[in-house]
């Protein structure tokens, strides 16, 4: 006798959510289901991001939803996390777009910018009328951003910017880039943030071709050759490497939730498939090996949901540090990647074609595993906190 399958929410995480948190998740989920999922296969194949959906995302308030004022929704961190979860249930590229816009471009302006910079950029960025990107990583400095070679030298009343940034999500479609560069002195403490607008002479960008992962997302190289920046291009309150790292903590927070959404999408697809697909005269779901796989994936999703929820509570109390975020990003992305691989197996040969969402999530999560602090870097962050000994070298 077949019993009714249980839902995703075995531990009633939903009961712990407030009304507005549920409504935020529902609004995002409906947008993803109705507007994004019907077009994601086409965009993933073409290697494009659905730019026509950006105004709708802006109107929904998906950009910088956790920021207050300046046209932002002012939601709590849990609601913001749920938004990220639902976006990445669609595709990691969709969540990446919102992460970069909100956590990596709007957040530094919001946190380190002047009132004039905030008024000028944030409302338009919240509406999706201006797209932002974040330039920290360089060709020779990924996990080690303190070693960056991009410089911003004093030049009369402004600055002269030189250098190259790589792996920049939204790089070629951005209207404004938040670029991190070393100033006088050249040490990590001299790192400052600059707002570089599209069209500034000497600023160019090039899309990175050949990506097999995160294809429904634009990734670029930014190059700055004697780019003259006015005095008001600098983010005055951002001083030292801690400023860009604080932005990464924001984005990683969203990734911890988002990766869970990708895992949920994979689980749902694999379970449905296993119930419908018959081999040797019975559904795949009736085989112990399939059930073991589903049980494993399901347990990891429940654990990630509860970890995220607690992370959100701590964040709302102002008690979540980069360490909490590292633990969650590390755990949840690894779990999601493993879940995607397991779910892919359940689909057999159908698991490798993009009519089903799993292989797309699987290859996307390889990127998510590596960006915003690789899995290994988060291991070292946690390792240092556990032992008091830094294993970062140097």
């Amino acid at each position, binding site marked *: 006798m077949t019993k*009714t399958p*249980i*839902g*995703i*929410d075995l531990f009633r995480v939903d009961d712990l959510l407030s*009304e*507005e948190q*549920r*409504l*935020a998740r*529902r*609004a995002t989920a*409906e*947008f993803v*289901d109705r507007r994004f999922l019907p077009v994601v296969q086409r965009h993933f194949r073409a290697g494009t991001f659905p730019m026509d959906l950006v105004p709708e995302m802006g*109107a*929904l*308030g*998906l950009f910088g*939803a956790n920021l207050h004022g300046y*046209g*932002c*929704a*002012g*939601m709590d961190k849990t*609601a913001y996390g749920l*938004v990220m979860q639902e976006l990445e249930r669609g595709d990691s590229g969709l969540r990446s777009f919102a992460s970069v816009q909100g956590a990596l471009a709007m957040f530094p302006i919001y946190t380190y910018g002047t009132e004039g910079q905030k008024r000028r950029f944030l409302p338009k960025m919240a509406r999706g009328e201006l797209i932002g990107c974040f330039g920290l990583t360089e060709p020779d400095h990924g996990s080690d951003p303190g070693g960056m070679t991009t410089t911003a030298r004093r030049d009369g009343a402004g600055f002269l910017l030189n250098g190259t940034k790589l792996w920049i999500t939204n790089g070629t479609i951005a209207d404004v880039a938040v670029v991190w560069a070393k100033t006088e002195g050249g040490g990590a403490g001299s790192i400052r943030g600059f707002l570089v607008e599209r069209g500034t002479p000497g600023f160019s960008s090039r899309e990175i071709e050949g990506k097999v992962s995160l294809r429904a997302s634009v990734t670029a190289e930014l190059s700055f050759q004697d780019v003259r920046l006015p005095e008001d291009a600098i983010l005055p309150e951002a001083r030292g490497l801690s400023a860009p790292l604080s932005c990464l903590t924001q984005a990683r927070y969203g990734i911890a939730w988002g990766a869970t959404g990708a895992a949920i999408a994979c689980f749902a697809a694999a379970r449905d498939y296993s119930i419908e697909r018959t081999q040797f005269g019975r559904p795949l779901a009736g085989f112990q090996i399939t059930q073991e796989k589903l049980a494993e994936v399901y347990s990891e999703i429940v654990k990630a949901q509860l970890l995220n929820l607690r992370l959100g509570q701590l964040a709302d109390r102002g008690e979540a540090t980069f360490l909490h975020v590292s633990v969650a990003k590390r755990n949840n992305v690894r779990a999601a990647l493993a879940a995607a691989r397991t779910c892919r197996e359940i689909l057999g040969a159908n698991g490798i074609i993009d009519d089903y969402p799993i292989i797309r999530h699987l290859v996307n999560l390889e990127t998510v595993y590596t960006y915003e602090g690789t899995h290994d870097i988060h291991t070292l962050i946690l390792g240092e906190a556990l032992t008091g000994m830094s294993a970062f070298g140097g």
Partner: protein
Amino acid sequence: MKILVTVKRVEDPYQAIKVKPDGSGIISDGMNYKPNPFDEIAVEEALRLRDTHQGEVVAVTLGNEKCVAELRQALAMGADRGIHVRHDGPLDSDGVARVLAKIVEQEKPDLILTGKQAIDDDQNQAGQLLAEYLHLGQATFASKKESLESEAEKAKKPGLTLLPGGKAIEVVREVDGGLETLALPLPAVVTCDLRLNLPRYASLPNIMKAKKKEVKELSPAGLGVDMTPKVTTRRFAAPAARKGGVKVPDVATLVEKLRHEAKVIS
């Protein structure tokens, strides 16, 4: 223009519905709920009319404590305030219509908009009964001539037309084989069909603003309505599972099967 609009909490139609083994109802555990999609269309229409002619949109729901979430979604879409008639027991269309009639007497709206039916029990009666109890004109299955891809829809123009003088409303309704245009004196009851509009999403900033909007809680007893259902549900049963099709090797076999197995041709 003051508009009263209904919002019913229903099961998310995109989820698989499972019947309890004893047939007493459906399994609500782990089920997602949302506003009745036809009510969302009614809310959207109400907002467009208000934004065109000024006034107020009052959203009303009837049901248990959880229904406030659906009411809150209507407020987040843009309704001005909400009324929650708290009732934990079973509902039938007659009880719903009698409660709504009392609300209309209190609120005195110019127009009452409802979904043409709720997608859970598909009764398609509450709007009609309400119009009857209030002796008001009614137009069911409100639609419009313009398509949902039209410029008028993109500009979020109302599908219902307030006639000059503001005392009557013109409604295009779906009938078999075409559209019918009616004029109704206000106040009137209009039930909304699928092609009237594309409802907006509740945006995140508006979800936050909706937290501050007023929701008044009332009870059927306080309104003087006896909610004992006239229609009771005896048993739920899932539709028979569809059997898989068969492939036939040629047309002759197909004709043979249609004639002798399916008996649809002779």
